[in-house]
């Protein structure tokens, strides 16, 4: 089970993601954004951080990196691609996921634990969760306010491509539960074929009781299990 963790200039959650993949038995390898070729890898992980400082727009410059051409080919061939935080932003910029992540409504960086509801437990990434399960996961971002045009938004909902939504601790939609103003409280979505997931919260930071939560583990075990059965 070989997993590539791509490091862009300015990625800073690459190490955390690498450790998370390893914790569930993944054979993780760092790849520098100028390297090429993803043949032989079973999954690709795009970490959080500030690729190119988030200058211009978060993810805009990183999506020009040489490796992104290979990531696109890999994804189009059905390979699983997970983008977390800045990784999600890069996926949107590169067109692998629809829409865009705008500045948080508060115009402030938001760092804290949030609660997520698992909307779909039948994806590559969420099979080890129960539908409706409530997760406690840290966020840390300034641009996580998901936005797209009307048709895209309707398609996301009608096709059930919203995988995680911000809720309160009791699992309900509520004022204050959405940390960034995201449309329909969207925290994570997939592409049409379900092999590309982008999410703002950081499951790789919720892997140990010592650090406050283990609710991220199932995402990584789901991914590994899906690769072993496929």
């Amino acid at each position: 089970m070989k997993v590539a963790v791509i490091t862009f200039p300015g990625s800073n959650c690459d190490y955390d993601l690498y450790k998370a993949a390893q914790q569930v038995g993944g054979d993780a390898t760092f790849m520098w954004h100028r390297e090429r070729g993803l043949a032989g890898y079973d999954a690709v992980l795009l970490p959080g951080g500030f690729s190119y400082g988030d200058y211009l727009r978060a993810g805009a410059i990183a999506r020009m990196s040489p490796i992104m051409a290979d990531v696109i080919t890999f994804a189009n061939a059905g390979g699983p691609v997970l983008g977390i935080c800045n990784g999600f932003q890069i996926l949107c910029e590169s067109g692998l996921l629809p829409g865009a992540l705008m500045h948080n409504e508060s115009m402030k960086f938001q760092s804290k634990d949030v609660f997520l509801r698992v909307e779909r437990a039948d994806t590559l990434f969420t099979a080890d969760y129960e539908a409706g399960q409530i997760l406690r996961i840290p966020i840390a971002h300034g641009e996580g306010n998901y936005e797209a045009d009307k048709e895209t938004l309707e398609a996301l909902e009608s096709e059930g491509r919203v995988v995680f939504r911000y809720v309160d601790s009791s699992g309900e939609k509520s004022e204050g539960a959405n940390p960034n103003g995201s449309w329909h409280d969207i925290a994570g979505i997939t592409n049409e074929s379900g092999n590309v997931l982008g999410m703002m919260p950081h499951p790789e930071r919720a892997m140990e009781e010592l650090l406050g939560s283990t609710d991220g583990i199932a995402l990584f075990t789901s991914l590994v299990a899906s690769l072993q059965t496929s």
Partner: protein
Amino acid sequence: MTNATAMPVPPREGDPEITAEVVADHGLSPEEYERVQRIMGRDPTFTELGVFSAMWSEHCGYKNSKRLLQLLPTKAPWVIQGPGENAGVIDVGDGFALAFKIESHNHPSAVEPYQGAATGVGGILRDIFTMGARPVAVLDSLRFGDLDSGRVRYLFSGVVSGVGDYGNCVGIPNIGGEVQFDRGYEGNPIVNAMCLGLMKHEELITAAATGGGSPLMAVGARTGRDGIHGATFASEELSEDADESSRPQVQVGDPFTEKLLLEASLELIASGAISGIQDMGAAGITSSASEMAGRGGSGVELEMTDVPVREEGMTPYEILLSESQERMLVVAHPGREDEVREILEKWELEAAVIGQVTDDGKFRILENGKVVADIPALPLTDGCPTYEREGKEAEEITALREMDLSEHMIPEGDLTKTFLLVLGSPNVASKQWIYHQYDTTVRTATTVRPGGDSGVVRIRGTNRAVAATTDCNGRFVYLEPRTGALAAVAEAARNLVCVGALPTAITNNLNFGNPLKAHIYYQLRESVLGMRDACSAFETPVTGGNVSLFNETDGKAIYPTPVIGMVGVIDDVSKITRHAFVNAGDDIVLLGTNTGELGGSEYLYVTADLVAGEPPSVDLEGERALQQAVLKMNHEEVLNSAHDCSEGGLVAALAQCALGDGEAPLGIDVAIDEDLRPVVSLFGESQGRILVSVSPENTDQVLALARRYEVPAQKIGTVTAADGGFSMKVRDASLSASMAELADAYFGAIPSIMDAPEGSGS
């Protein structure tokens, strides 16, 4: 090394002539200038004058503080690197070493809060990774005027975003800090940033230039005209009507480049291709090159036209004194320059050879091969004149301290209302508004996040963790500097034992007014003496620090603020305690006693707009016993929570324990019966007290342990369910409130002021 003398150097075309006025503009007194002439054996050139001015500024030369700093204890078996390097280093066990240091950026933040704070964080990160350590945590210690001023709100929000954006982008978690709002900081905010870095012992590298002929390389960002004379600027008072043009060009931070520079530097150090590396911080190339030469007992020769610049037409003077950020000076092993270049290129950065280490003990600068400065290196770094001055307490402060506070000991009106007022004062209230803008969990090591007594990061692959805190109550130091400094060190150590960490060493930031004034020098000296005594008592040596003087606007100085950044070691992460109560039904035990002072309290500030009275006394032996007792209880695993009593007194500490981070509040039922006025019992900020909660079956053991350490201890009440509310009896007085009322006051205070939209207030 030979006793180098300066060669004759003709004046450079286009440079200004040196007049008495030019000398004064460079912050040198006539006597200091004479000393320069003596060292040089001739008049300095304009370039040379600039170099002396920067190196002999307070910021680099510690003219007014060096002799005092020499009084501080700096040694212990666990100290690997004491003061004098880019950061102190201590052993933390299992082969790991911790590098840590604090740094101020007060003056730049007063001018441009966002960039000032951001570049402050950038500078302290570089101090850590130049030691070979990977930065693992940041803390920030801030002071502002009262939040009712628009200008202050502008400074506060700018500083917080600056600290946040920089650290967030580089990916270093913030694990704590402090902030105080008081009119004493109205004109001069304080922005101190502290960084911790971890490495294996063998990864340590120091910043000395040795080995004649070794190439010197400039690495990282290009040099622009930013911050020229920042070091001198930081060593002067601000004045409201200061001529805009006399201020140095603002330095703009580029955290993205910093992240690349961080990775590249650690890779460079690991490669073995270099023998020394240093941040080009205050006074830029000048200080980094001359300090590296000074430490190595060697000389340097630099060619200015080889320095990669961002702007055209820069003079040697400008290049030497630029404080452009995100740059490093590296001493490469001869013949390995290409390796250095390759590593930098991989990280999409530049490296250029700009000179070499020499054996002649000179700081020599060339422009197109022509010498424009030739200065004996040693006197430049070590020959800075140092002063011991007359110190005398200001009479008005003696009067303030001796003020009779008895009329304030009788509460006016409803005690519960007063309590909510104190709890909702920005100094006591929750600081979530700040640290929710800081990434606290990146690097997946943060075990205790901001909001508790100390931040904690675990050391991956071991059972250990390091803890850190910053503390100083400037009001106490203002009222009685020695006691205030004792209290700052004592509070820091208390904050560490509350999470279960053994206090190990400190770094400190001396933020003061103009030391040429006798009453300010008095504050400085007394503070240092207090710090010395407390650090000796707690066995927490000083491994480094920073001095920021001249924090005055129009003659008004800040409160003397010797910020203590203390680190501690936890050898079993499973035993960490936090401040919040965890179970209804637990007993609440107060360790330590109330010594009865009300001076300098938040209560007085909030209810009477007063900073006066005798600040709380500090009993070093009692403190030490308290801290050892709490550590013992932690090791025996009999504590469910522990929290230090500080601003707002016992009642504020109880409220903080009951509210926690707001997610799972609990109530309390407490009764205090001591021979003091209720106001003093509730709001007095007596030192040496820690509140713990204990499962009832462990209470006897906790009380027995306290007795064994001769620490006063009493069960004062119990934790209740949240709907039981907050209820306290103090002799004949009482107060009670619902947890929702408390939460509103505590969590709502800063957001309700800061999230109202407004302009820059400038």
